[in-house]
C-alpha cells in the first residue's frame, strides 16, 4: 500500500517538474509548479515529517507560488512563452550526466540504516530543538536577520526612482 502511494507520488512529482520545464506557456508552468509543491508536501507526510508538510503548504503553495504568479503578471511576457536558449543540448547533456552520477552514487553506497521507528508528532520535538537549551537558537536569530534584510532589499530594489 505504502509502495503504491510512493510510486504514484513519484510519477506525479516528476511529471509536474517536467511540465514546468517543457510547457511553453509560463502561466501553466507556474500552475504545475504548484502541483509539484503539493505532491512534495505529501511526500513529507510519507516520511513522517508532519510539521514540514504543513510548512511546505503554507510557505510554498501559499506564498511563493503567489509571488511567482504575480511576477509573471507584472512582467507582461506571457505571450513570449518560455523558450529555450542556445545551450539546450549542452544543458541536457550536463543534467543527464549529473543524474547518472547521482543515481550511481546513491545505488552503490552502503547506507547505514537505523531500524528505530521515527518520532511520530514532530512539531513539539522540532520546537524544542529549535528554541530549547543547546538547540538551534543562534541560526534561528540569524534567519530572522536574513529575512529582514531580504524584505528591505526587495523593497529598495522595487521602489520607483
Amino acid at each position: 500500500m505504502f509502495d503504491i502511494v510512493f510510486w504514484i507520488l513519484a510519477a506525479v512529482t516528476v511529471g509536474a517538474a517536467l511540465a514546468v520545464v517543457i510547457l511553453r506557456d509560463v502561466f501553466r508552468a507556474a500552475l504545475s509548479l504548484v502541483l509539484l509543491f503539493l505532491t512534495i508536501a505529501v511526500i513529507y507526510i510519507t516520511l513522517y515529517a508532519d510539521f514540514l508538510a504543513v510548512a511546505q503548504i503554507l510557505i510554498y503553495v501559499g506564498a511563493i507560488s503567489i509571488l511567482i504568479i504575480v511576477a509573471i503578471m507584472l512582467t507582461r511576457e506571457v505571450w513570449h512563452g518560455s523558450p529555450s536558449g542556445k545551450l539546450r543540448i549542452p544543458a541536457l547533456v550536463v543534467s543527464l550526466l549529473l543524474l547518472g552520477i547521482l543515481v550511481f552514487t546513491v545505488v552503490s553506497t552502503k547506507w547505514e540504516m537505523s531500524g528505530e521507528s521515527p518520532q511520530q508528532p514532530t512539531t513539539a520535538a522540532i520546537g524544542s530543538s529549535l528554541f530549547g537549551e543547546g538547540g538551534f537558537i543562534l541560526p534561528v536569530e540569524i534567519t530572522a536577520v536574513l529575512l529582514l534584510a531580504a524584505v528591505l532589499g526587495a523593497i529598495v530594489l522595487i521602489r520607483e526612482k
Partner: protein
Amino acid sequence: MSVGLEHYLVLSAVLFSIGLYGVLAKRNAVVILMCIEIMLNAVNIALVAFSRYVVPMFLTGQIFAIFVIVVAAAEAAVGIAIIIAIYRSRESVDVDKFDLMKW
C-alpha cells in the same frame, strides 16, 4: 523491493537534474527562478529522507530543511524584485538580453 532511502534519494536526484536543466536552458528569468525552487525542493526531499531513515530519533534533517525553506523564501522575494527592476528598465525578462554587467 519495498520503498526505502534509495528510492527517495533517486527521486530527489531526478528532480534536481530537471531543475538544473531548466536553469541552464531556459531564457525566461521567471522560469529560471521556478526551476531553482524545484532544485531546492529536491534537496529538501533528500534531507528529510536522510532524517527519516538514518537518524530517525533526531530531527536535524527536518530542521535543516526548515532553514532551506526560509532561505528559499528570501531568495524568491529578492530574485523577483531584481527581475521586476530589470524588466522596468529593459522591458524584457529574457536572460539573453540581461547584459548589464558585461564589460
